[in-house]
């Protein structure tokens, strides 16, 4: 069985971005996987490095045993909600339609099939009544659902989500997690950056615990232990941060492998 995501020695050390050091793991398919850690532990950085948005200093990652370039149509990225200007003059439908652009290139018109997929995605997130609503008029939870619908419209096998539950009301959160579970049941893999320890055990069957470096990775039952959580949330490795600051201050070259 091909792993969904594999990273090898993934290291990102730039100024002003949370650093990640030597991240090395192999993740299974068909599960909802949580990425957790304290603020500044590099969770978003990790997702962005896997998606090719940030170039790692050292190391690489593979998706379904291939390079990102070869499997883009199988991967969907849901960025943090605040990375977008919600005042943009677009309707809910317009945003979800963006999910179909990947397969359409510059010119091809959206087909009947595309339209059907967009409508289906909207209905799966219960946003059909809002189809023509302008996105600035949506609540936080509704905006998140629109993002999710866009991702669904891509019809990918692997979904990478950055903090989908931030600033979302309880009812929406419940609806989203139910949707994620049904996607998992269809065989999709979901990699979710999350911030709330209280819900982690309910939501995730597999976890990656991060604190600038990999603290632990494995089935939730194995890694959600007191010792591991203490190591994750109990403070940064000071030596690591000292080395990182010397690197940046003295402008040392890093080798790229």
């Amino acid at each position, binding site marked *: 069985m091909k792993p969904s995501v594999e990273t090898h020695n993934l290291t990102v050390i730039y100024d002003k971005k949370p650093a990640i050091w030597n991240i090395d793991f192999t993740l299974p398919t068909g599960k909802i996987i949580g990425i957790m850690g304290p603020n500044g532990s590099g969770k978003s950085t990790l997702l*962005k490095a896997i*998606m*090719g*948005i940030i170039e790692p200093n050292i190391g690489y990652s593979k998706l379904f045993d291939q390079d990102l*370039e070869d499997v*883009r149509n199988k*991967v*969907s*990225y849901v*960025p943090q909600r605040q*990375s*977008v*200007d919600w005042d*943009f*003059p*677009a*309707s809910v439908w*317009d*945003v979800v339609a*963006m999910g179909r*652009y*990947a397969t*359409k290139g*510059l010119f091809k018109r959206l087909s009947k099939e595309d339209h059907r997929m967009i409508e289906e995605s909207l209905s799966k997130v219960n946003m059909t009544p809002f189809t023509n609503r*302008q996105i*600035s008029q949506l609540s936080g939870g509704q905006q998140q659902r629109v993002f999710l619908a*866009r991702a669904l419209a891509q019809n990918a096998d692997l979904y990478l989500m950055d903090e989908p539950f931030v600033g979302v009301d309880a009812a929406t959160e419940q609806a989203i997690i139910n949707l994620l579970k049904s996607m998992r049941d269809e065989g999709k893999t979901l990699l979710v950056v999350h911030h709330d320890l209280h819900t982690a055990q309910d939501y995730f069957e597999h976890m990656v615990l991060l604190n600038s470096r990999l603290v632990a990775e494995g089935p939730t039952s194995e890694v959600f232990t007191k010792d591991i959580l203490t190591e994750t949330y109990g403070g940064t490795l000071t030596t690591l941060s000292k080395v990182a600051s010397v690197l940046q201050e003295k402008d040392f070259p890093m080798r790229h492998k």
Partner: protein
Amino acid sequence: MIDFWIILTASLVATTTAILGCFLIMRKMAMIGDAISHAVLPGIVIAYYISHSRASFPILIGAAASGMVVTYLIQFFHQKVKLQQDASIGISYTFLFAIGIILISLFSGNVDLDQDCVLYGEIAYVPLDNLSIGGLYAGPRQVWILGTTLIIILTSVIVAYRKLVLTTFDPAFASAMGISVVLWQYYLMAGVSLTTVVSFESVGAVLVIAFLSGPAATAFLLTKDFKKMLYLAVGFGISASILGYYTAVWLAGSIAGAIATIIGLQFAIAFIYIQFLKKARISETLENKALTEV
């Protein structure tokens, strides 16, 4: 007839800039237009001096060269020596603009530019500079140049529409989809540079900015659909050109200045209208609440 040519020239500038402006303001890049329009000055002056003519091609080359210098300078200050971005842009384009003004002084007499014209153009002269093709009167040269530019820009935007919209709205998602955000950024910048340079002669450096930011901003206030915003912006730009021209005639003042003033008025009216709407909506909501609570 002269009226017509002048208004047409202004409308051509207005249309091209309105379209580009919609993308620029959504990308929070309105001031980049300002920087470019100032920074191309030395390149244009040198081109004028070398070619001894007002031919467009050398001007474009000169402007492009100038544009590359300013881009390099901004990168140097921001990336290499880590100066904050607003200051990097400010230092670079004011330096180049200063050099441009000095060059104009230096070459005065050899170069058919004067300082005032640089800042606010002289669109009134446009109908006097006619083009002849094969001996036939073909209308003012500027109209041909601006018309061609409009067609180029329009085509480029239509062709790349989806990519431009996507990279404007959600660069992270676009990047994740394999779209090169940087490429489309440069694409847009090239369009803005081209437009600024060709509009220089008719409306000057500072007023191009009014054209780039004003109609688009007014349209943004009034609509929730990006396509409609584009159409509205063009509409506002053209109407400002017409009204501005007649205002300038009435006040015996600069045409470009008058058009910019009208652009400002359009924005002000739209802004006030929106504020009224907001207040009306709020009191309506409060009324409804009061009714339902009874």
